[in-house]
């Protein structure tokens, strides 16, 4: 607890945050759960299409020395997910979406080579080194030595005879044209020409009309990338990375190569670069870093009128990453909502929160029935099957049921009977907010005292924007916590996408964070510096004056 409170902000807060510790604990808990999850004996084998990969039968030629060493590394670190024969069917595979890579067909997403070509050794190494963001594949560069990683490349290639005698060569690419506003406009126009929006959506959030029907080569549902989160791009987030993905496609996924489009003269190579620049421009310059304390800024004048109010544009955004709820049954391994952006302001008496997050559907949406059906066959049934129909989208904000001076927090996953939580639960259908107490995930008691929270929601091209407003002081502190300027209050978030089969239990959750309510700046803050400056200046004048007098007195006496 020693390092807590460093972001508490101001000396006026009577309580200090313990966010850092709890986040680590929660993350560790989630990791432990993830590791333990595949272990129960009830785990079914990963569901794969009935047709096993035939083709050139693997491992016909003897393993090279490097591949033999790679096998040792593979069996220790990779087998649990990718399986003994490299078919992507390890014990943990069924819990992952997307599934671990099947190496037997030598179909690799991230390459520098043309669509359908084999990857180079360096291509495979890059994925081992950097992992695949947004999937269960971690980066191994810090964990395994360079030799071990090279040996792994040799061993992975032995899973498919396609590599025998093959010498894949990278596509030659030019250099990126300079960036400009006109270039971005051309990129946007080309985005439309190429109909990227069919899958990725008009605003790039992966909510295009074809998105609910997308399947990978193994017939698993696959999401169109949310182009507004470049840090989740599998092949890297730079303009050149994106350009390469456009040229090579992502084999095994619905994402095609656009090289032929240039050859056919439909667009120029420069225009494809412009698309890459445009796509990059949809994400923040830098990947967002989660911060432990959300500042509710004090505003003078009126609070924003709704989630679309332009007043929100100038308000700091906090990035809250979410992870699948994989602790309490039914667990959820395929969350659709990756993060929530939070903004907060207050005017001394009322709090306004704005939450925005990528959700590819305004659930329930019949266009997504097909997606839900695909999810139902893709996720393991160990924790029961998914609902047959789509529920609403959900966003829940969680506070401790009772605020204590030492910031004692309830169990992060919905509290428990000893220490309940206070919840604001928004649903898309009906578009409503419930307030009440939670004593564990799925145990909710609506507040008897009526509504204090007002809300407005808006769905815009793959993004939910919800504004929640409540007076800082609660009408009944026993039922709902009161907030006040200068106070830090624990806060946590969870979200669910109904069309993804998510509900009260199955969804994505955050650890505890804190929300700090800015204090009004007292007048003394402005007066004291002026007085101090005046006094200092006055003192300086006196000192100089006296020194000059003394000096002149001396010179007078010397001269006489």
């Amino acid at each position, binding site marked *: 607890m020693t390092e807590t409170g460093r972001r508490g902000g101001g000396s006026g807060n009577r309580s200090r945050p313990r966010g850092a510790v709890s986040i680590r604990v929660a993350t560790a808990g989630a990791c432990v759960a993830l590791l333990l999850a595949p272990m129960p004996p009830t785990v079914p084998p990963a569901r794969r299409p009935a047709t096993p990969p035939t*083709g050139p039968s693997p491992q016909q030629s003897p393993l090279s020395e490097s591949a033999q060493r790679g096998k040792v590394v593979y069996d220790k670190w990779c087998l649990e997910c990718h399986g003994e024969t490299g078919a992507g069917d390890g014990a943990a595979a069924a819990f992952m979406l997307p599934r671990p890579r099947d190496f037997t067909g030598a179909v690799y997403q991230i390459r520098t080579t043309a669509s359908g070509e084999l990857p180079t050794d360096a291509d495979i190494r890059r994925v081992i080194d950097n992992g695949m963001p947004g999937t269960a594949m971690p980066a191994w560069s810090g964990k395994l030595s360079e030799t071990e990683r090279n040996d792994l490349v040799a061993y992975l290639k032995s899973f498919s005879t396609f590599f025998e005698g093959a010498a894949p060569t990278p596509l030659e690419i030019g250099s990126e044209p300079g960036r400009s506003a006109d270039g971005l406009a051309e990129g946007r126009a080309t985005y439309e020409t190429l109909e990227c929006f*069919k899958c990725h959506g008009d605003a790039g959030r992966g909510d295009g009309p074809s998105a609910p029907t997308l399947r990978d*080569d193994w017939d698993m549902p696959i999401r169109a990338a949310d182009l507004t989160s470049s840090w989740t791009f599998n092949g890297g987030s730079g303009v050149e990375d994106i350009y390469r993905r456009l040229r090579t496609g992502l084999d095994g*996924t619905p994402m*095609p190569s656009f090289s032929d489009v240039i050859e056919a003269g439909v667009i120029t190579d420069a225009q494809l670069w412009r698309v890459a620049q445009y796509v990059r421009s949809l994400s923040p310059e830098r990947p967002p870093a989660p911060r432990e304390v959300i500042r509710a800024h004090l505003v003078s004048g009126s609070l924003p009128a709704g989630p679309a109010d332009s007043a929100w544009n100038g308000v700091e955004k906090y990035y809250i990453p979410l992870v699948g709820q994989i602790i309490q049954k039914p667990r959820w391994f395929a969350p659709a909502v990756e993060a929530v952006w939070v903004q907060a302001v207050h005017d001394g008496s009322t709090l306004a929160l704005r939450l925005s997050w990528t959700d590819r559907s305004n659930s329930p949406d019949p266009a997504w029935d097909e997606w839900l059906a695909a999810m139902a066959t893709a996720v393991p049934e160990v924790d029961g099957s998914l609902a047959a129909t789509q529920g609403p989208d959900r966003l829940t904000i969680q506070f401790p049921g009772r605020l204590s001076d030492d910031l004692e927090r309830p169990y992060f996953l919905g509290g428990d009977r000893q220490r309940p939580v206070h919840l604001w639960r928004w649903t898309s259908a009906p578009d409503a907010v419930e307030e009440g107490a939670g004593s564990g995930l799925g145990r909710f008691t609506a507040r008897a005292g009526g509504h204090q929270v007002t809300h407005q929601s808006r769905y815009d091209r793959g993004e939910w924007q919800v504004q929640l407003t409540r007076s800082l002081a609660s009408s009944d502190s026993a039922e709902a916590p009161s907030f006040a300027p200068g106070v830090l209050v624990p806060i946590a978030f969870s979200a669910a996408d109904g069309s993804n089969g998510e509900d009260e239990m199955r969804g994505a959750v955050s650890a505890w964070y804190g929300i700090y309510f800015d204090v009004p700046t007292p007048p003394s803050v402005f007066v004291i510096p002026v007085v101090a400056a005046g006094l200092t200046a006055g003192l300086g004048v006196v000192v100089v004056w006296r020194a000059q007098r003394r000096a002149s007195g001396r010179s007078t006496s010397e001269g006489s």
Partner: protein
Amino acid sequence: MKQLALAGLTVITVGAFGWYRGGDDAPAGITGTVKFTGTPPANPKIDMSEEAACAGSATTDPVVTVSNGNLADVLVYVKSGLPPGAAAAAPTAPAVIDQHGCLYRPRTVAVMVKQPLEIRNSDPVLHNIKAVPKKNRGFNISQPREGMKTTRTFTTAEVPIPLQCNVHGWMHANLAVLDHPYFAVTGPDGSFSIQGLPPGNYVLEAWHEKLGAQTMNVTVPATGNATANFTFSAK
């Protein structure tokens, strides 16, 4: 006189040989019709309302197409029995598959190894074409413009290779790659004709994406066609 007789004999011999050679070039192959009996399985419904340019093109996915009892989109090919060296060089003329009305036409297309497959887009919308083979390398390319043509070849015999469009999830086609030219795909009349086969005994297979495969032993005579009629029924 003797010389004349010799000349005459030569003429007769050459002529006879020529006649015999001509027999070799005469139609020798397999013809037949693929029939369907019973009630065809219902084709899955498709909803093209998302795509204005194609809306109304079809309301069902033509997996099984039967007209007057004749079954279309059946690949008929020599499965075994070819003498060594019987496989000719790959035709240079491409086999063509078109995307029109947000459907693949034809539904089933066959090429020989190394024979070009020309993929056309006759729709004013984006299609991506993804091939998901096991023995060949796949590809996933895009055709965002009407009139675009892309050519691909394949290295290894493989039946079938699924073709699909991810923009329009209902679009599926079957590609067959064979290491010889003795194959055909039935049209709406269910008929097929495989020509140029050396005389001999063959195993012929008729393959349909939903109705499965049937094989038949066929003897191709030195001249003329052997007949092979297949009949499928609902599985």
